[in-house]
């Protein structure tokens, strides 16, 4: 372990953001190295298109470069914000929504209940998330994945799977509660 406290690690992202505001390219590169792998995995999972995934990856970090002054680290987590922005843009692209759907997220606050600022923490969380998903039934997991990675709503999932809407709602609600319980969130 690095020996840093949670506060110091949070400040680390915040310090890099501050340097980006001062147009320090190396700070952006550092944040890219920290989070690009996570975002690339997410984008490729949603889009299944390496080129499209890298376009959005580049776009998200360029948006961070251009708008860093608007991001307030005290209001939320940078990796959470990046993840929400990346997912929103990928789903918009996948579903041919207007790209402007994601722009309002500049003001979006995301509080991640874990520290993600180093690789070890990310690996540990990966194991917890995988374990929590494995505790779901096959149907619950499929429904969660259709929602998160394909951006489907309750009724769209019901239509896709052929299950009654009420069943789908109950299944997803129970799955989310299970995830919260197993991730100890």
């Amino acid at each position, binding site marked *: 372990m690095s020996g840093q406290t949670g506060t110091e690690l949070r400040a680390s992202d915040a310090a890099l953001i501050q340097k980006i505001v001062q147009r320090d390219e190396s700070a952006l590169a550092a944040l*890219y190295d920290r989070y690009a792998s996570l*975002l690339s995995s997410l984008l490729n999972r949603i889009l299944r298109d*390496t080129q499209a995934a890298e*376009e959005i*990856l*580049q776009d998200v970090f360029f948006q961070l470069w251009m708008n860093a002054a608007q991001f307030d680290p005290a209001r939320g987590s940078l990796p959470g914000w990046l993840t929400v922005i990346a997912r929103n843009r990928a789903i918009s692209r996948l579903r041919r929504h207007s790209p402007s759907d994601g722009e309002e997220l500049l003001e979006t606050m995301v509080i991640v*209940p874990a520290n993600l600022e180093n690789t070890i923490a990310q690996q540990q969380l990966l194991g917890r998330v995988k374990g929590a998903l494995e505790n779901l039934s096959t149907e619950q997991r499929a429904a969660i994945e259709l929602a998160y990675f394909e951006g489907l709503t309750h009724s769209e999932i019901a239509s896709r799977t052929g299950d009654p809407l009420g069943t789908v709602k109950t299944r997803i609600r129970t799955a989310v509660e299970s995830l919260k319980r197993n991730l100890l969130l």
Partner: protein
Amino acid sequence: MNGHPIRPEDFDLYALGVLEGQEKAAIESHVPTCPECAKKLAEARGRIALLAFSAPRLEPSPTAREQLMRQVRASAESPEVQRAQRKPDRAGGFFGRWWAAAVLVPACILLLFVAGRLRNENERLSRDLAQEQATLQQRQKQLDEARHAQALLESKDTVSVALAQQPGMPKGDVRVMYNSKMGMAMCDGWVEPAPANKSYQLWLVPREGKPISAGMIEGGPINPWMVKLPQGMAAKAFAVTLEPAGGMPQPTGPMVLVGPIT
């Protein structure tokens, strides 16, 4: 609900994106006016964001980072802007003269007007320039990918790996062009559509260690794609397995196609 028209569990469902109609509208109309619910929604967004960790790990290509940094450098603000700032004049007596004020005040107003017009024009030109740069970046990216594909296909170190259908498994004919030194692979061919809620996943099988995901394969004709893999890897085979929709960090399903690297 304690005066808040939102059930606690709805924050997570909204962040997940499954709510629609009145349930969705209720959150979107209430949260902007309620800091307490805004915080709950932010926490729900953070919980749901953790699902990103369940995606199979896939590193971006080095090209993506290079292109980002090129784009950043191209957009960097000119230092001339800062030098253009001037210190205020401290000769207070000068401004005490009525005739100076009579001349300078209208002049300042005119200058502000002109400066405003110039700033608007500058912003418009900056937007045009950024758009042109984005287009250029996109073309550069396509060119880089084409060069990588050409280098892969022309290299004498590239091997062609034909993946053979396994008994009782869905039909398919997949070929992988693989260059261990470059750490690049390109996949094409076709495979029968996967069963419901299942996906095909391509793996590089090293001589030692765990298989490495090389991407997902849609059923039907494969749109050829390139994937970056660890360089210099001693590998023995490529394989396609049938996995839960979206893929897995490690293979869990049956092997559909396999081809040894010779």
